[in-house]
C-alpha cells in the first residue's frame, strides 16, 4: 500500500520535470535509477572521505550512536508524509483528525512498551530534550523547597550539562561516583539524600559502556524518601524489559532513533500518580498538555510508536541473538589477542554494547585503521575531543587504558558475517599497531611502564 503510494507520488513529481534538464540532485538520482541494473560505480574505486579511501560501505557497529530505521517502521511512516499530512492539532477537518488518532495510537504503543498509561507520555524531539525538561523543569517547578539534585558521574552529557546549568543558578548537585564495574553504590546514594533533594537522576543503560544500573533498588530508595526519580532510558528502551511501576520512576527519557525508529523524536514519561510537575522549557501553542509546545511531527511519532511495538514483540529474540553475537565477537578477539579488557560490568550489561580496551594501542589510531568498520571510541558527542572518555575515568580506568577504548555496538540487523569480519580486521589492526607500539615492546622486555617517570606534555 505504502509502496504503491510512494511510487505513484514519485512518478507524479518526476514526470512533468523530465523534459527540462534541470540538474537537481534528486532528478539525477531518478535518472540513474531508471538504469537500475547498472552496478554501483563508486564501489570499484572507493569513496574518498575525510582523507580516507573507503571501498564500499563500512559495516556498521555503532548502534549506540544511532540505529538504522527498521523497514517496517518506514512503511508505517510513509502515508503520513504523502497523503495523511494533516496537523494533528487541526480540529476542523479530516486531515487533522486522522493525524491526531495516529499520534494517539503511537502514544499507546510507546506506553505499552514501558508499562505506562498513554496519558503519561509526552512526545518531544529526543532524549536530550526529555532530559532537559526532567532535570531543569522539575527543579525549576519545585525551586522554593527543593535545592538539591543527585546524579552520577557517568550520565549522558545532556544530563550533566543541565545539572551544571542548575548549579549556576544556585542549586546543589551531587555527582555520585561509580564502582569500577560502572554501577553506583546504593549506600552512597542513600547517604547523599538530603531533606531538600528534589530529584535523583540515574541512567538505566549507559551509552558508552552499556552497564545496567540497579533501577528497582534505586526506585525503592527514592520511594522511601519520596523523591522523584528520573532515568534516561534512551539506551534501554526496547532492549531490556522496562516497567515504570517496578522501577518506580517519575520521569523517563526515551528516544526514537536508538530503537530502530526515526531520528528527531523522543518521548518523556511523566508519572500521574503521584503527579510530577515540570516547568516547560518550550513555550508556545500548548501542545502535549503545555509541557512541550510545537506541532507534534506525526510521521516521526508514528515511526517511534511502530518501533516500540516491534521492539516489544521482538525484544526477547533480539536479546538472544545479540548476546550470541557479543559472545562470538568477544571470544573471537580474545582468542587472538592478549590484554583485552572489557570496560564495565560483564554481568550487568546490555550485550549490544561491547566497550573494549586494547592495551598499548591508542584508540584513535585504531579507529583510523578500522576504515571498513564504523565504530567509535565512546560517545559520538565527545569523540571530537582528545580527552579520554569521562565515563571511563569515572570507572577508575587508568588514563593510559582510557585512551585505548573502542565501543562496538551490535544491533538487530548485525549479522554473524559482519561480526567475523570486524573481529578479523580488529585483530589484524591491533597486531600491526602493537608492533608499532613502544609500550608493548617495553612490556615484552619486562619493563613496568608504571615505574617510568614520564614527562608530561
Amino acid at each position, binding site marked *: 500500500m505504502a509502496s504503491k503510494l510512494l511510487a505513484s507520488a*514519485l512518478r507524479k513529481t518526476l514526470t512533468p520535470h523530465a523534459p527540462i534538464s534541470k540538474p537537481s540532485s534528486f532528478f539525477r538520482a531518478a535518472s*540513474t535509477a531508471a538504469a537500475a541494473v547498472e552496478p554501483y560505480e563508486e564501489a570499484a574505486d572507493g569513496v574518498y572521505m575525510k582523507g580516507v579511501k573507503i571501498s564500499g560501505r563500512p559495516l556498521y557497529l555503532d548502534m549506540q550512536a544511532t540505529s538504522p530505521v527498521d523497514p517496517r517502521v518506514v512503511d508505517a511512516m510513509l502515508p503520513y508524509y504523502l497523503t495523511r499530512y494533516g496537523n494533528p492539532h487541526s480540529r476542523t477537518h479530516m486531515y487533522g483528525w486522522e493525524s491526531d488518532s495516529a499520534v494517539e495510537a503511537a502514544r499507546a504503543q510507546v506506553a505499552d512498551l514501558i508499562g505506562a498509561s498513554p496519558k503519561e507520555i509526552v512526545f518531544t524531539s529526543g532524549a536530550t530534550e526529555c532530559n532537559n525538561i526532567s532535570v531543569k523543569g522539575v527543579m525549576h517547578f519545585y525551586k522554593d523547597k527543593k535545592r538539591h539534585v543527585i546524579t552520577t558521574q557517568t550520565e549522558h552529557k545532556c544530563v550533566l550539562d543541565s545539572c551544571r546549568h542548575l548549579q549556576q543558578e544556585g542549586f546543589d548537585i551531587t555527582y555520585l561516583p561509580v564502582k569500577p564495574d560502572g554501577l553506583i553504590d546504593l549506600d552512597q546514594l542513600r547517604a547523599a539524600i538530603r531533606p531538600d533533594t528534589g530529584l535523583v537522576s540515574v541512567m538505566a543503560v549507559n551509552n558508552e559502556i552499556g552497564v545496567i544500573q540497579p533501577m528497582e533498588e534505586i526506585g525503592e530508595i527514592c520511594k522511601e524518601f519520596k523523591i522523584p526519580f528520573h532515568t534516561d532510558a534512551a539506551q534501554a528502551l526496547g532492549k531490556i524489559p522496562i516497567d515504570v511501576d517496578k522501577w518506580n520512576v517519575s520521569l523517563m527519557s526515551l528516544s526514537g532513533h536508538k530503537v530502530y525508529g526515526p531520528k528527531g523524536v523522543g518521548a518523556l514519561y511523566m508519572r500521574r500518580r503521584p503527579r510530577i510537575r515540570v516547568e516547560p522549557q518550550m513555550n508556545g501553542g500548548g501542545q502535549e498538555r503545555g509541557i512541550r509546545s510545537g506541532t507534534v511531527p506525526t510521521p516521526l511519532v508514528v515511526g517511534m510508536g511502530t518501533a516500540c511495538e516491534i521492539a516489544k514483540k521482538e525484544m526477547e529474540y533480539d536479546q538472544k541473538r545479540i548476546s550470541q553475537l557479543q559472545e562470538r565477537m568477544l571470544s573471537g578477539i580474545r582468542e587472538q589477542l592478549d590484554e583485552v579488557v572489557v570496560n564495565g560490568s560483564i554481568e550487568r550489561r546490555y550485550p549490544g554494547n561491547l566497550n573494549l580496551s586494547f592495551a598499548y594501542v591508542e584508540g584513535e*589510531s585504531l579507529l*583510523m585503521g578500522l576504515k571498513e568498520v564504523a565504530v567509535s571510541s565512546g560517545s559520538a558527542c565527545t569523540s571530537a575531543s582528545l580527552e579520554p572518555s569521562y565515563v571511563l575515568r569515572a570507572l577508575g580506568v587508568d588514563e593510559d587504558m582510557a585512551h585505548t577504548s573502542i565501543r562496538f555496538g551490535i544491533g538487530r540487523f548485525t549479522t554473524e558475517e559482519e561480526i567475523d569480519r570486524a573481529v578479523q580486521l580488529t585483530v589484524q589492526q591491533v597486531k600491526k599497531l602493537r608492533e608499532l607500539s613502544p609500550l608493548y615492546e617495553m612490556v615484552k622486555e619486562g619493563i613496568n611502564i608504571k615505574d617510568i617517570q614520564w*614527562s608530561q606534555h
Partner: protein
Amino acid sequence: MLRLVSKRLLQGSREAQLPAALTLPRLYHERVVDHYDNPRNVGSFDKNDPSVGTGLVGAPACGDVMKLQIKVGDDGKITDAVFKTFGCGSAIASSSVATEWVKGKQMEEVLTIKNTEIAKHLSLPPVKLHCSMLAEDAIKAAVKDYQTKLAKSSNGSSEASPVEKAANA
C-alpha cells in the same frame, strides 16, 4: 514494488551525498594516511649499543609515546633511524617523517628540524600540533642520549638505563 522504490531512493540518496562529502573538511591529509598505512623505518636498535641514541618522549596518560632511535657513524653522521609510536595517526606519521628526515644527516643538522616543518609537511590541524612537537622532542632526546653515552664511554663510567634517562629528558 517496494524493493524497487526503496532501491531507487537509496541510490538517490547515495548519489546526492557524494558531492557533499567531497567538500567536507578532511580529517587527515593524504600524507598522514600514507605514513599511517605504510610507516617507514619501524623497529628498534639495541639501546645498549654505544653508537645508538634513544629518545623516548610523551606519556601513556596523554595518549602519546614516541620512541626514536638513531644510529650514528664515526663521522657524526646518522646512518639509520627507527621509531615506534603509541598514539594517534598523526603521531605515527610525524615520527615516521622524522626518521626519514634525520637519515643521512649530520647530528647538528637534525637539531634544526622544527616541529612546524613536520606539521606543515603533514598539514596537521591545530589540535594535532603537539604530535609534531613530540617528534621534534624525540629527535633532540635521541641526539642528547647519544652524546651523553659518548661522553660517558670516553670517561669510562658505567651508564644508566638509556630508556629511563630519555624519559626524564
